[in-house]
């Protein structure tokens, strides 16, 4: 899709499906927060679930064998299908004599397009999950892996049903629509020759499957017809029955926010339930039909994913949908933009790259901004942003170099091969851009704002001209720092390196100056060495080699300071998130451990200092005052937002904290022409919170630089970093 097409596609979805998707994902998202908050051993359950999945995937070939033996012992059949065509061939053979087949919801069956294959051989297929039923009647595709029809409002569904089914009385309420579907599909269930289900989990030792549903349709599909076909990816196998326990307790909470779904079916087919001849007057005990069970295990790229060290983690996914529900971008556009051929949401990049190929993943992969809000929500602790970045890197490498490459060549001393889009190279090398821009400020500021430049930037780099570009400061933080005298070692209680991130150094030195002043007044000798970029910018563009290189260089630049026992303090949360998170992937374990243990976010650090010595608060600027605080997404994922909040409250400020998952800017995302409108749409939610009646007098604070840019556009009030508010008075 071209940039313009993509922008138009997103705009259309924002207008048509955005409201419904937003309303529904918000209910799921808040439900999950509430349901997991009450869960005492949430973290242990996630650890256990992760462990079980790791073991299961490492033992997968032997577990598939064990499962096959168990199912066959029980009297069922197992077919291991190499790909979609193979699976469909087997399924259509089993359903050869069938006139109709009823299905419960299964994403894996969508992945292989089994409905089309069955219809082609003359079998009528009915989706019985009510959401899937709506989609089938509307001839659309699911917009969410758990709630396939969340992009449709009740009114739209009513209109659809009234048009398609010509009911006596027009249907209107949710109750009427549900009862109509129940009746209609109830009849289809009774007539059906074959029932098809998915499987959420399969137990190797016993051949038991767990089906997670609330409607009861999967139960009906499994027992009403005599023949049951279950379609499942090979990755669903677990060793033992008891391994199901953490998943039973996590899956509904993570997905829709229920403690459990209404029905957790533990079926060991063929089941002992007698066959049911609907319309018969012979007692069930006299039924003499045989039950036939087929388990179709689908590889379709999964065994290769298992061998791929970066995609392997995707196989742990239990498809709860949490990573979609928590995602600000997903909340606004849904799976029809944030999804590939079958899967949607954050983890879809891994699934699509694995089962349909990189091209399908490439269609939507950029919508993951790496905000990391999904990471703590995933019940199997998958590093979802990382999978997105890795696949982005692979897509970049696969693309042909651009004719405009020479334009950014000088700006981009990166380690990437040609093929990375110019837009990505520009943002991935933003540090270099800033360095050059700053040298020539204010000329560069003035130039960048000239209409021809904005036109060229939009044309070549697809930087949206509706965005204000950051203005380079006349004096960088480092220049200011070198020209002054700090604390001497003898005056200080401790020493710390303040990490001069690109934004703070070149664009917004005030926050850096405030940080230096604060630290020094609290007895910390500050060092501000010339350090490389952290690697965050190239990483977010999928430029992994450059990110890795910068990680090595940054560590090299910090190692001596760590040896000297100095702490490392970051102002920009996304850089701290590199030190504490992604560096684990780039650095030797010991290096990562040292740096991550010694690094802090500025307000976290100040909080620590004043907690150890409460009298020190006197030097800070105290309230009273009313503030509206937006914590940074990665800062919240690291659990650090609270330090700033508590610090402000301890200093006698009345704090309103935003509840949105993301401001919408997410680094460079909001600058990109194709995503500008989505970025603003996400931002308006934050605007609503801070512009609500009675809140407009509050001083606006934000920890992240891109959040600050976004808030600056959204609000009349100028946002500041919290450290600027609490830093000692200049006087």
């Amino acid at each position, binding site marked *: 899709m071209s940039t313009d097409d993509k922008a138009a596609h997103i705009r259309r979805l924002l207008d048509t499906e955005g409201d419904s998707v937003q309303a529904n994902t918000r209910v799921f998202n808040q439900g999950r927060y509430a349901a997991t908050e009450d869960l005492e051993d949430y973290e242990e359950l996630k650890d256990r679930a992760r462990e079980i999945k790791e073991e299961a995937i490492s033992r997968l070939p032997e577990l598939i064998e064990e499962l096959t033996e168990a199912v066959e012992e029980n009297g069922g059949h197992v077919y291991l299908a190499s790909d979609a065509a193979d699976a469909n061939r087997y399924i259509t053979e089993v359903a050869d004599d069938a006139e109709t087949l009823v299905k419960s919801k299964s994403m894996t069956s969508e992945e292989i397009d089994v409905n089309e294959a069955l219809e082609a051989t003359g079998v009528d297929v009915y989706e019985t999950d009510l959401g899937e039923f709506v989609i089938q009647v509307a001839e659309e595709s699911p917009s969410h892996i758990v709630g396939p029809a969340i992009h449709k409002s009740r009114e739209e569904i009513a209109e659809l049903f009234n048009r398609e089914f010509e009911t006596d009385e027009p249907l209107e309420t949710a109750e009427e629509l549900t009862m109509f579907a129940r009746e209609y599909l109830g009849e289809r269930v009774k007539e059906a020759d074959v029932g098809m289900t998915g499987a959420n989990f399969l137990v190797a030792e016993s051949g038991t499957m767990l089906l997670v549903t609330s409607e009861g349709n999967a139960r009906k599909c499994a027992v009403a017809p005599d023949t049951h076909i279950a379609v499942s990816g090979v990755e669903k196998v677990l060793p033992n029955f008891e391994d199901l326990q953490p998943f039973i307790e996590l899956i509904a909470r993570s997905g829709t926010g229920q403690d*459990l779904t209404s029905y957790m079916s533990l079926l060991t087919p063929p089941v002992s*339930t007698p066959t049911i001849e609907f319309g018969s*007057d012979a007692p069930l005990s006299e039924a003499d039909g045989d039950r036939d069970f087929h388990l179709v295990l689908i590889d379709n790229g999964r065994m290769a994913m298992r061998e791929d060290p970066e995609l392997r983690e995707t196989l742990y996914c239990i498809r709860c949908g949490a990573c979609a529900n928590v995602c600000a971008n997903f909340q606004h556009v849904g799976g029809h933009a944030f999804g590939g051929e079958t899967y949607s949401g954050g983890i879809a990049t891994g699934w699509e790259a694995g089962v349909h190929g990189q091209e399908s993943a490439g269609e939507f992969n950029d919508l993951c901004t790496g905000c990391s809000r999904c990471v703590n929500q995933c019940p199997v602790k998958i590093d979802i942003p990382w999978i997105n970045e890795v696949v982005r890197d692979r897509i970049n490498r696969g693309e042909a170099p651009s004719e405009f490459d020479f334009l950014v060549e000088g700006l981009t001393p990166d380690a990437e091969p040609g093929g990375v889009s110019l837009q990505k190279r520009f943002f991935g090398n933003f540090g270099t851009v800033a360095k050059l821009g700053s040298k020539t400020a204010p000329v560069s500021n003035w130039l960048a704002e000239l209409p021809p430049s904005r036109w060229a930037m939009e044309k070549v780099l697809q930087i949206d001209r509706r965005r204000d570009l950051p203005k380079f400061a006349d004096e960088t933080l480092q220049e200011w720092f070198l020209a002054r005298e700090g604390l001497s070692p003898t005056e200080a209680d401790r020493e710390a390196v303040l990490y001069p991130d690109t934004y703070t150094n070149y664009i917004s030195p005030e926050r850096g100056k405030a940080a230096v002043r604060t630290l020094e007044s609290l007895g910390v000798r500050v060092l501000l060495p010339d350090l490389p970029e952290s690697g965050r910018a190239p990483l977010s563009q999928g430029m992994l080699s450059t990110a890795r290189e910068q990680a090595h260089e940054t560590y090299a630049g910090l190692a001596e300071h760590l040896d000297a026992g100095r702490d490392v303090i970051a102002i920009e949360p996304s850089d701290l998130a590199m030190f504490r998170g992604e560096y684990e992937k780039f650095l030797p374990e010991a290096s990562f451990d040292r740096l991550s243990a010694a690094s802090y976010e500025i307000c976290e650090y100040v909080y620590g200092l004043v907690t150890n010595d409460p009298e020190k608060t006197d030097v800070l600027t105290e309230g009273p005052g009313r503030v509206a605080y937006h914590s940074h997404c990665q800062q919240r994922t690291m659990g650090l937002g609270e330090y700033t909040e508590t610090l402000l409250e301890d200093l006698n400020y009345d704090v309103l904290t935003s509840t949105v998952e993301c401001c919408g800017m997410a680094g460079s995302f909001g600058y990109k022409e194709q995503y500008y409108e989505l970025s603003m749409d996400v931002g308006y939610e934050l605007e609503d919170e801070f512009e609500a009646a009675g809140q407009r007098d509050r001083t606006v604070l934000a920890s992240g630089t891109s959040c600050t840019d976004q808030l600056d556009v959204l609000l009349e009030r100028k946002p500041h970093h919290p450290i600027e508010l609490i830093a000692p008075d200049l006087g």
Partner: protein
Amino acid sequence: MSTVDTFENALDGLAVETTRLAPEAFEGVLEEVIEKPAVGTLSMESVSLEGTPVATDPTPNQLTESVTGVTGASLGIAEYGSVVLPSTSGGAEPVSLFCDLHVVVVSAEDIVPDMPTAVGTMATTLADGRESAIIATGPSATADMGALVRGAHGPKRVHVLVIEQ
């Protein structure tokens, strides 16, 4: 709180009614709770459907025409208000699924506190015996039509009878 109290509390949160009763009171309570016509299948030591208006060993026609289905639960899970419904050759699965009202009978002593205990028990009964069961928690439900509706494909209402010795 006793395990049974916890169970009852959790069921209350699921909009499921609970009646605690002694085995002797079973027939009378059952009559009050069911809506006719009713079908059922139950194999418990302390109580039986014999002599009640509930038709046992139903035909498929009775099954689809009845308002109430009565079955037993092998376990109750107190913290969730869940009942474990074993699939039997007597047709407990369709009886618990096709009628609007599902009446579940469970012995107080079979109510376990939490999910790990329940799964542990099922590992030896269900998995080792290669059996099937449903962990049912509240009535059938859907939110796919724009609001929460009870009774999507399965029962619209559930009533749990706890037999206390």
